[in-house]
């Protein structure tokens, strides 16, 4: 049985189907790349699965149990966590306090006492190489640091499945390399990952499989090389003419 089984997930905003009949399986321990042009429904899909938006149709099962209709906090406690594309720091808290919240309220069996939570937060900050900023105000962090804090907060929840929504946006090439290494380390520690990203090099290096969304529908799914060379995927990103030119 797959860790997550999504079947016919649909989300409509009025007449617009932001996500239409998307089905996929997520295997335990894999990294699934989720790509697609802007507006193709990647973030909406994550929002629906993690309970931030209600379903229009379909269902998602986590270890066989339906997640549909559960509030987002309950899904977080079951072990399905996410980061936000537009980071949402707790601005008036320090970095370590931000991460403590994840430990205090995360997956069942988490660190419920403040001292334990602080300890775990410090460990996680060390893991994401942000320990030196532990006592800084979250508001004082720069963009790459904020992205790493966002990641640290989610990791402190000890998730089984983690959805990363564009954690590499705004990073420079060497920072992206560091992020790729970090994400692989997260997987090696036992967390299954779904990675939304526009940085193709990172997606190719990271993913065991890639799922492509286009206009809310699943365009294709498969191994990175195969998917990224698929003419439909190229035309979805760059337009039909580009495919014809590259063939000529």
């Amino acid at each position, binding site marked *: 049985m797959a860790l997550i089984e999504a079947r016919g997930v649909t989300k409509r905003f009025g007449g617009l189907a932001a996500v239409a009949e998307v089905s996929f399986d997520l295997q335990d321990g894999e990294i699934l790349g989720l790509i697609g042009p802007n507006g193709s429904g990647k973030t909406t899909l994550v929002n629906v699965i*993690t*309970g*931030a938006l209600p379903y229009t149709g379909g269902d998602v099962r986590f270890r066989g149990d339906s997640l549909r209709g559960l*509030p*987002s*906090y*309950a899904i*977080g*406690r079951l072990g399905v*966590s*996410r980061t*936000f594309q537009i980071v*949402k*720091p*707790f*601005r*008036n*808290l320090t970095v370590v*306090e931000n991460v*403590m*919240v*994840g430990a*205090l*309220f*995360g*997956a069942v069996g*988490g660190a*419920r*006492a*403040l001292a334990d*939570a602080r300890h775990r937060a410090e460990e996680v900050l060390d893991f994401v190489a942000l320990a030196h900023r532990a006592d800084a105000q979250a508001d004082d962090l720069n963009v790459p640091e904020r992205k790493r804090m966002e990641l640290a*907060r*989610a990791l402190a*929840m000890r998730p089984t499945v983690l959805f990363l929504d564009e954690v590499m946006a705004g990073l420079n090439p060497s920072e992206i390399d560091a992020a790729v290494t970090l994400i692989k380390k997260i997987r090696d520690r036992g967390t299954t990952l779904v990675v939304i990203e526009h940085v193709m090099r990172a997606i190719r290096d990271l993913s065991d499989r890639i799922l492509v969304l286009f206009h809310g529908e699943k365009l294709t799914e498969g191994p990175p090389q195969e998917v990224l060379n698929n003419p439909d995927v190229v035309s979805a990103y760059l337009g039909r003419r580009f495919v014809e030119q590259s063939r000529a």
Partner: protein
Amino acid sequence: MKGSRGKPLVIGAAVVLALALAPAGLSPFLVQFLINLFMLAALAESWNIIGGFTGYASFGNVAFFGIGAYTTGVLLTAAEWPFALALPAGGLLAMAFAGLIGMPILRLKGHYFAIATLGVAETMREIVYNLKITGGGTGLTMPITRSALPFFYLMLGILIAATLVNWWISASRFGYGLIAIREDEDAAAAMGINAALYKTAAFALSGLFAGLTGGVFAYWITFIDPEGVFRVIVTIQMIIMAVFGGMGTVVGPLLGALVLATVSEVLSTQLVSLAELFNGFIVILVVLFMPKGLAEVIRKREFSLRKLARNLREYRV
């Protein structure tokens, strides 16, 4: 944070002891002033739970104060309950009401929440005005007590309890949940916090202390009417005191109440016309000089013209 935990407790215990012994050496006027000060501080601390820690600016907390006052008053007079039962009943009813009304209106945010709470308080006043059991517009008269001392110690006790609850919130898992909700509710929910439950609990706690304060107020002042105990200005005072002292801190509301109650007492006896303008001045000064409150200024020992200039730019004055 760890090493400094003992110190506020010691200072707090010393202040409480001094206050507990104070009535013996003070004039009746000063005892009355202190009762009023304790009441305002307790109200500011109660508002701080929902407004300061949770970030939901309630403009209707006077409703809980009024419900506490009227419940205690009606039980004391019409039902002839002893005060020892009537007061907790008032507090608990205010708490239950806050919890119930909180479930729907805490779904609103920002200005919408503020307006909804304002509406709740105004509605409560009208309801009490039109009920028979509350005496309608003529109000309720309590049995008269000879000594002010019981009220002194009751208000002090409620203030201490409210402060301790704020202190507990500031250093507990529950408090981290509330602060996370204040900072970003979507992120808080994604991180496993049951925001609806936490907000409602915070609102109910806030209602409990406002209700208890109202109950003591009713018996102390011996006469209550709808205009008196459902005044919007009472909520505004809670907010200004908490904001002036420092929202979301434990000592902030205490500092705010102490400074503002003292100044407004002096003004209202010396310069009545200025007293009316006072609250407005305070809001302007706080925004310009110390948006995070007096407690923060004292803690960081920073108070500079450069900061004033920055705030002027930031708030586009």
